[in-house]
């Protein structure tokens, strides 16, 4: 009954989306005011219904209702409750329903609260949101029904991939989806602005909190995904340039560019068409990412749908949405009036370089990700990995970081170099000093060397815009910028130092043996069997001491799950302020020793701290913008009330 209820809600939500689209379309015409009034309520009710459908799915998963196909295929009655619920989106159909629900909720929210733009533009925006939404509703209802029933329920479900039975991972898809789908709002606003030829600073201000919100979630999602891959896969790496990782990186790059160009548009009324273009591209990247990941074109733990009709369906959706938006852009871009001008040496100039560099990196990642697909069409099998991505993106990222250091010091519109000479010399000095020290003493390779030096440059530069200003009166968005830029430096420092100084030891050890790795002495004191709720494991007991200090216990495991049957390595980590000891236990050798893989990874945690700082910076900026908007709204209302009083 619950599944049918969910399905009915979904159908109703889809029909409301259709109503929303038609009403927004016809409401634009003369005499369409009555229809136009339907659009906002339709968006809100659609959001509620879609949310309801998603709750119903959670419910059938929580009860392990095995008569629902999706539950039978992906769940198991002996799973912990949290993974039963998380299992709802740990599969293709459920994750698509999550996608559509977030999209509907975001659309409902703008319909409810956004009143600053001309109503015509809002109608067009909500119409665009409904159009994109309809495509995904159709995909769910016709090609991926999450509520399909089984005629004969099985006695037990298939279980969830053990790799996915992890709390961090349970939260990973919703986080990323908030980011992906949040960008759909920017997309719809861009389409709405193009349709009504209304690109103003006000438009950028309305769009900005949405971009910021989506961007924060993307940042968190990517950071968490990287940490998950790091500790769960047991390979000791934190970024593999896996197509799935790239699929989340590409929207992030586009959203980062969009965030910066929207701030130019909001503050200075420049970069109008460019901002619109980025709005279209950012969500297009989200959709391309979804297509790559979900279509089964790329093989990975994330590829659920190996059904070719689904792949073609998503491809068609992609072509309609992206192609349509780009065609609209091509037709309308010329009619958007030129914005304000600015000198090359100005805040805008620096942000233009930031945008161009981010777009170039986006292009590089996109090309590298698609290249294997392209060559495969010609019968050539290749894979593209770090030897391509690292140096080629560094060519654009490193200069961009230099601009990141200097840009925030510049004034809007035009500036003179003399004015910023002193701080620039200080920044450059810090960079060169670190470069020389690292080069002469540590003899680093080129990329880590440049990385560490640039991290110093950006770290120093991040807080320079705050100098000479009253810290207590500093607006939150400025704090946000400083902290996010500092986060970039922290993450870059972690990446470079880890790449340069990681110590690795791979060996087979007998019980009682001691192994040295970096500054650590690690003793294998025992190997014992342990059991969990749905697995058994061989667990190594390792005593580790840092430079002869106190001993710490680490217990890496080699786990065997029975539903579905599979073995995974559970790494054990020991975190110090200056790095992590990473241990993995493998199998037994013929002579009774145990395979051990140990890493000392100095400052590796800074990578994720940096990511968290970037997200925190975004959050501060978002809070600053939203409270600013609310305050302004209250003020306008007060003024209006006073006017009314005076008039009386």
């Amino acid at each position, binding site marked *: 009954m619950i599944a049918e209820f969910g399905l009915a809600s979904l159908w109703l939500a889809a029909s409301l989306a259709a109503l929303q689209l038609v009403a927004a379309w016809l409401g634009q015409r003369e005499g369409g005011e009555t229809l136009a009034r339907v659009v906002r309520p339709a968006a809100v009710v659609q959001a509620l219904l879609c949310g309801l459908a998603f709750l119903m799915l959670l419910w059938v998963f929580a009860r392990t209702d095995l008569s629902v196909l999706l539950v039978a295929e992906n769940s198991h009655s002996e799973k912990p409750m949290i993974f039963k619920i998380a299992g709802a989106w740990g599969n293709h159909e459920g994750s698509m329903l999550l996608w559509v629900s977030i999209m509907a909720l975001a659309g409902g929210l703008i319909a409810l609260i956004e009143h600053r733009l001309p109503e015509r533009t809002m109608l067009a925006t909500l119409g665009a949101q409904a159009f994109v939404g309809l495509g995904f509703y159709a995909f769910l209802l016709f090609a991926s029904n999450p509520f399909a029933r089984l005629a004969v329920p099985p006695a037990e479900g298939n279980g969830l991939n053990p790799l996915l039975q992890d709390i961090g991972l349970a939260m990973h898809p919703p986080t990323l989806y908030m980011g992906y789908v949040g960008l759909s709002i920017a997309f719809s606003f861009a389409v709405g602005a193009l349709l009504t030829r209304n690109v103003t600073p006000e438009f950028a201000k309305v769009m900005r909190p949405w971009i910021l919100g989506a961007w924060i979630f993307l940042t968190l999602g990517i950071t968490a995904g990287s940490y998950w891959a790091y500790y769960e896969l047991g390979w000791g790496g934190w970024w593999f340039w896996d197509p799935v990782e790239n699929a989340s990186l590409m929207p992030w790059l586009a959203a980062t560019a969009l965030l910066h160009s929207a701030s130019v548009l909001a503050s200075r009324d420049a970069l109008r068409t460019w901002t619109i273009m980025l709005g279209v591209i950012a969500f297009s990247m989200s959709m391309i990412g979804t297509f790559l990941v979900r279509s089964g074109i790329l093989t990975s733990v994330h590829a659920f749908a190996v059904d070719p009709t689904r792949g073609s369906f998503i491809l068609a959706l992609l072509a309609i949405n992206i192609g349509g938006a780009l065609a609209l852009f091509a037709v309308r871009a010329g009619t958007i009036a030129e914005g304000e001008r600015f000198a090359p040496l100005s805040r805008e100039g620096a942000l233009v370089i930031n945008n161009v560099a981010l777009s170039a*990196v986006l292009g590089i990642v996109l090309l590298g990700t698609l290249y294997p697909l392209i060559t495969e069409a010609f019968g050539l099998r290749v894979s593209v*990995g770090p030897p391509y991505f690292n140096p080629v993106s560094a060519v654009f990222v490193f200069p961009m970081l230099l601009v990141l250091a200097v840009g925030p010091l510049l004034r809007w519109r035009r500036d003179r170099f003399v004015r910023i000479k002193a701080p620039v010399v200080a920044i450059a000095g810090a960079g060169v000093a670190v470069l020389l020290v690292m080069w002469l003493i540590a003899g680093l390779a080129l990329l880590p060397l440049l990385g560490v030096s640039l991290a110093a440059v950006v770290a120093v530069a991040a807080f320079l815009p705050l100098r000479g200003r009253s810290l207590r009166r500093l607006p939150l968005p400025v704090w946000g910028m400083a902290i996010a830029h500092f986060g970039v430096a922290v993450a870059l420092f972690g990446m470079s130092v880890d790449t340069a100084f990681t110590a690795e030891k791979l060996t087979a050890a007998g019980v009682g043996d001691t192994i040295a790795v970096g500054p650590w002495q690690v003793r294998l004191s025992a190997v014992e069997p342990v059991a969990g709720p749905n697995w058994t494991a061989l667990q190594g007991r390792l005593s580790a001491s840092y430079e002869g200090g106190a001993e710490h216990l680490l217990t890496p495991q080699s786990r065997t799950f029975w539903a579905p049957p599979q073995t995974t390595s559970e790494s054990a980590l020991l975190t110090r302020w200056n790095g992590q000891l990473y241990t993995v236990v493998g199998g037994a050798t013929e002579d009774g020793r145990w*395979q051990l893989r140990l890493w000392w990874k100095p400052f590796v945690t800074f990578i994720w701290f940096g990511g968290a700082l970037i997200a925190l910076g975004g959050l501060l900026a978002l809070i600053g913008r939203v409270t600013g908007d609310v305050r302004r709204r209250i003020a306008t209302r007060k003024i209006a009330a006073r006017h009314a009083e005076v008039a009386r």
Partner: protein
Amino acid sequence: MSAGFKPKHQRLVLVILALVAILAAGALAAWALKNQASYFYIPSEIVAHPPAADRAVRLGGMVKAGSLKTAPDGVTMHFLVDDGKGQVPVTFAGIAPDLFKEGSGVVAEGHMVAGTFVADNLLAKHDENYVPRELKDMSEHQAKQTVEQTK
């Protein structure tokens, strides 16, 4: 330069800047892809035309039954990868994936050094749902190869 651009010229300058950057990025990417993409080989191909030692490639085939030996250090493995028409010795130091065993398929990433494939990484079947793409299509790929060679 001054802020004396006419608006139209400024837009033009920006467009040209963006185009140049995108072309540069594209050219660089194309050049790097040509040199850095790692090609997929099967044993008979890699024996006939061994790639340069500094070039990262992928090798796919079956782990030949009875060929798997572990070195005295307990972590270095030697085995033969076979495609029915040729075989190549592979060495790998590390913890092998759980489903890596004799007689089953494997994709190895690494370099060809003096007639031996030195693997940095082994990809094996993770579970029923996660099969490296090269592995899943291997038989079909081999069939195509055979057809091409007998033509």
